[in-house]
């Protein structure tokens, strides 16, 4: 049949109409929308039985209790444990994001051996057996060559069984070089040692204080146990306690405080001394305490009256004389005044004289070991492990001086000085460092003068990391023997961040290990056994869990049941029994060590004409600045006034920025004697003119695209400045220059 034009058209039109009347187009329309509702690349979470698993958070030293919501064997959400003495249900951004570390791309999934150049990121998987054998062989050889003391070890904390296992290992092995990541706790501990004569941690009864005078402490920016401090801050709002924040920058703490006193950077100790002056001059101090329980007041007092008149202090601190006097009077007049120290989140140890100065302000009003005051809290005691026998190699090694100089004549109070390690290792004055073990720490990122630290590490022939994540330090390692993530393992966690009572939390596994990783406690025990001899003998346990149980002794049962042990009955020692100094009293001065509460100006690196500004790091709860990198959720919470695309924002007062021609939002170069970085200008009225600030916790180079390559690591721009008395880092900032990019 010939199809003519007419029938062709009729067919076409008829066909179209026909199709429209059939269900086909409608069905297709419907199906395509249903398809769009079920795109195969949009995941559908699997269902499962709901339950909760309980553990503790170890992403910071805060010691929060956690409950993890489980669906089947998946952990889907971290929540704060209700009723927990530290956090009672609250939890911070980092704690909430823990599952992204567990399930994230940055995990080390099995032991790995470097194959390419150091830090080039080329690895090959190896077995645990091979990995342990290699470490044992390398360390064994050094020991055979009487070089055991040239092995160094860095751990995150100094408390708890895992650091203790490392210390034990290093001791029987024969090296004194065990270091920990420093913090203000170290300085405060020394202050107690000098002034109280006791080995204890400083606890603050913040909840019961009614006048809080903070010398730059970031009370709601990660200082102490963060969630506990948030709760305290809210309690102060309800009780009407007054909070006075002394700080050059309007931090969140300053903004939340009742009174913000801007101060010239680094002069907090002078203000403390000025307040002491007023307290003494106006006889506002606690006469009973001073008269009966202190030593050396008379001599120190004369110095204070002479050196720290409000006029002088005003000129040092830039604070109005009358404000100083008024604050001192208010402080003395308050029912339960409390002075706090430790700048920002307390990651910088700070000056010992300053810690003593602030402690003295507390002592003057007699709030030592009182309700609402400062408490000397003993470290929780653990059951003793079997004695260890040191062979002659170990004895020789242990007798050597430490690389970092801690415990030497110059720094007799210090146990560990990580800030001095890089220089010691680089100069190899006494001996070179031949091996480095790193666990639960990321010093290549966190140490001020981070670039120098990295250089020192590059020089060390053998570096072993026990990190669960491929962090900056692990990237410099030759071998990574990955730990389980905290949600996969057991570990005790003594909480040493300013609580009033001794407390230990228990980290418990909530999921089965995802990868071929090992609890670092087990790794150490197995390593010791592989090495054998006196070393193996010192580790008689079959597993880390057995060791943990033994160490915790009678605390284990309570810990296992409640996930927490707390010495409920603990009472601070009465003044009569509190002090174990030579005099048996609170000592204002230690003439032997030439130590007393005072203001010691800091010589910042760089000269003021090349670097006219001061750069200070600041802390934010929305960034993790410790050894843990920022998981995607944390990065998502970062304000756009801190990070814009890949550039960190530098806070500059408009009055400082405008003469330099630095418009808000523009790119600029920030340079310091340590280095240079591209930054974005952020005009912030809350920062003192002449001072600029960038957040700590950015600029990671390790980990995946969600975590790395954002902003700069402030530790690469600042260096460390040694405290004369303690040897610890006391740099609160660095000289800097800003110029148009």
């Amino acid at each position, binding site marked *: 049949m010939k199809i003519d*034009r*007419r029938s062709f*058209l009729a067919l076409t039109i008829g066909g179209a109409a026909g199709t429209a009347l059939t269900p086909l187009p409608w069905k297709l*329309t419907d199906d*395509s*929308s249903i*398809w*769009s*509702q079920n795109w195969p690349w949009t995941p559908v979470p699997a269902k499962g039985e709901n339950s909760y698993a309980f553990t503790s958070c170890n992403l910071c030293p805060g010691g929060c209790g956690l409950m993890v919501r489980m669906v089947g064997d998946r952990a889907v959400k971290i929540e704060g444990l209700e009723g927990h003495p530290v956090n009672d249900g609250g939890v911070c951004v980092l704690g909430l994001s823990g599952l992204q570390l567990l399930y994230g791309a940055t995990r080390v999934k099995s032991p790995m051996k470097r194959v390419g150049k150091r830090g080039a990121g080329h690895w090959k998987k190896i077995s645990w057996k091979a990995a342990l054998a290699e470490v044992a062989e390398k360390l064994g050889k050094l020991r055979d060559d009487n070089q055991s003391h040239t092995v160094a070890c860095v751990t995150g904390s100094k408390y708890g069984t895992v650091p203790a296992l490392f210390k034990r290992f290093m001791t029987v092995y024969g090296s004194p070089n065990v270091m920990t990541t420093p913090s203000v706790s170290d300085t405060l501990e020394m202050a107690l040692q000098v002034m109280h004569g006791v080995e204890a941690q400083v606890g603050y009864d913040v909840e019961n204080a009614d006048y809080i005078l903070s010398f730059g402490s970031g009370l709601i920016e990660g200082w102490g146990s963060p969630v506990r401090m948030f709760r305290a801050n809210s309690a102060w709002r309800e009780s009407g306690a007054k909070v006075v924040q002394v700080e050059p920058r309007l931090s969140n703490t300053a903004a939340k405080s009742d009174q913000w006193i801007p101060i010239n950077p680094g002069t907090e100790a002078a203000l403390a001394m000025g307040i002491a002056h007023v307290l003494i001059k106006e006889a506002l101090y606690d006469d009973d305490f001073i008269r009966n329980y202190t030593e050396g007041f008379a001599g120190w007092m004369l110095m204070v009256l002479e050196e720290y008149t409000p006029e002088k202090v005003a000129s040092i601190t830039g604070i109005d004389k009358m404000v100083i006097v008024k604050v001192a009077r208010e402080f003395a007049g308050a029912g339960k005044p409390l002075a706090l120290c430790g700048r920002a989140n307390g990651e910088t140890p700070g000056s010992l004289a300053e810690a003593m100065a602030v402690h003295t302000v507390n002592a003057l009003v007699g709030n030592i070991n009182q309700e609402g005051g400062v408490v000397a809290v003993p470290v929780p005691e653990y059951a003793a492990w079997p004695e260890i026998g040191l062979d002659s190699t170990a004895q020789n090694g242990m007798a050597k001086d430490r690389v970092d100089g801690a415990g030497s004549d110059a720094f007799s109070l210090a146990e560990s000085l990580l800030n001095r390690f890089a220089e010691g290792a680089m100069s190899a004055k006494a001996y070179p460092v031949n091996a480095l073990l790193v666990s639960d720490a990321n010093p290549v990122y966190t140490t001020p003068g981070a670039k120098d630290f990295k250089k020192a590490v590059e020089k060390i022939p053998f570096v072993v990391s026990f990190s669960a994540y491929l962090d900056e330090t692990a990237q410099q390692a030759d071998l990574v023997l990955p730990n389980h993530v905290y949600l996969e393992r057991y570990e005790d966690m003594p909480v040493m961040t300013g609580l009033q009572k001794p407390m230990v939390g228990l980290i418990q596994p909530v999921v089965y290990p995802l990868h071929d990783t090992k609890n670092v406690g087990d790794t150490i025990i197995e390593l010791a056994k592989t090495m054998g001899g006196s070393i193996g003998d010192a580790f008689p346990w079959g597993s880390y869990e057995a060791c943990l149980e033994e160490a915790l002794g009678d605390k284990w049962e309570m810990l296992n049941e409640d996930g927490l042990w707390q010495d409920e009955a603990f009472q601070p020692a009465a003044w009569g029994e509190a002090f174990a100094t030579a005099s048996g009293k609170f000592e204002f001065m230690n003439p032997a060590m030439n130590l007393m509460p005072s203001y010691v100006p800091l010589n910042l690196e760089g000269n003021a004409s090349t670097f006219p500004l001061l750069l200070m790091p600041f802390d934010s709860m929305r960034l993790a600045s410790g050894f843990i990198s920022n998981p995607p959720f944390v990065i998502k919470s970062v304000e756009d006034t801190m990070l814009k695309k890949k550039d960190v924002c530098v806070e500059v007062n408009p009055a400082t920025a405008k003469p330099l021609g630095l418009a808000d939002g523009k790119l600029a170069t920030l340079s310091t004697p340590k280095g240079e970085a591209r930054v974005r200008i952020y005009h912030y009225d809350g920062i003192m003119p002449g001072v600029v600030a960038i957040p700590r916790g950015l600029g990671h180079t390790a980990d995946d695209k969600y975590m790395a390559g954002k902003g700069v690591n402030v530790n690469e721009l600042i260096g460390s400045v040694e405290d004369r008395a303690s040897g610890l880092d006391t740099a609160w900032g660095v000289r800097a220059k800003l110029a148009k990019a």
Partner: protein
Amino acid sequence: MDSALIPKGVKRCPLPQFGAALMIVGAVLLWGVFALLLVWFKGLNQTNMNNAYGFALWIWADLGVIALGGGAFFTGFLKYIVGKDELKNIINFAVLIGFICYSSALLILAIDVGQPLRSWFIFWHANVHSMLTEVAFCLSCYFGVLTIEYIPLILENRQVDKVPFFHNLSHNMHEVMAIFAATGAFLSFFHQGSLGGVAGVMFGRPFGFREHILIWPYSFFLFTWSAAACGPCFTIFVTKLTEKIAGKKLVKDNVIELLAKISGWMLFTYIIAKSIDTIYWANVTVPSMGHTLMDFYSNNPGSVYGIWMLIAEIGVCGLLPAVILITEKGRKTPALLWTAVILASIGVLLNRWVMVLQVMAVPVLPFETWNRYFPSWQEIATTILPVAYGVILLMISYRYLPIFPQEAELNPIEEPDPAPAMEAEGDAEAVEIAQDAELAPAKG
């Protein structure tokens, strides 16, 4: 070559020249299609919109083309309902422009939504409270009406018309066109208004919000009014432009002048209404929400949104063209007429810009700052795409359809028509081309 398809009694440029022009515009069209595919496959991340700029260039383009396409309904309204019979000489072209504008609007909407495959939910799960629901319904219906109005034109193609069925169909459609024109006018009054209502009902956005009469915000009426005023201006503008390009007169002056005069008065009255609205809004509505008029016109980055916008919209692009068009001298002076229709078209586009983009830019939360936006190339390309498509459809329609009834009369051809032999082959080809012309917009 294609002369068999060209309407009787008129002259068209040689086919190669036409083809070359078509190719240039076609290249732009393809660029737009490429961007469109990117957007459809990769999603709206291809744009520079963000959570504060949920409505941006595309919505403006939508509102803009619909306003400019308003010439169709208003001319139809004048011809079929008011009875201005002279307008029959421009109504075809007005309908064609309207058809292009509305099909473009639908296309842009299909790009603009995040889930195009679910667009039909707007009908299935319709929310009667939403201005967009009304827009969607009226817009689709009116597009149907425009298609029906456009079909008889296609049927008038010399070759198509030879088919008796089409000839009769065309004739019958012409008979009932008044009904469709009336329906179209009715629908348009509503959806033009609803588009105005889109911003007018947003009581969370002080810059867009307008007080209501019953359920309709003032902007509802102002949008219909301005489309009726400026749409015909755009029709005149495109007519004049076509004349310029074709190099000959296509519509008699009296027709243009009539339309211009009516537009002028519409525009004049619109501007009065708009001014009253603005004064009331600035002095009553805005302060009740805690703002002053100048909050919306100052302190923004680059001072883009200055009070000049209001002056430009109401004065330069409103009052000025209105005055030109209502004065006889103005209408009759070509330069002035050109100026007036261009300014009026810009004015309505500016109004739509303000009612979309400035509404999004103005900060509402007291601690927020002005939102910035500049379209991505994909947005720009997809916005130019309908322009290219429109030009192509205009070119083809002008070449092959008797769009301008007065063209032959105004441009008599001296030499006898060199009608080529009627081969069967040529015939089939002709139908095909005609079909293409018909199908192209339906695809959009």
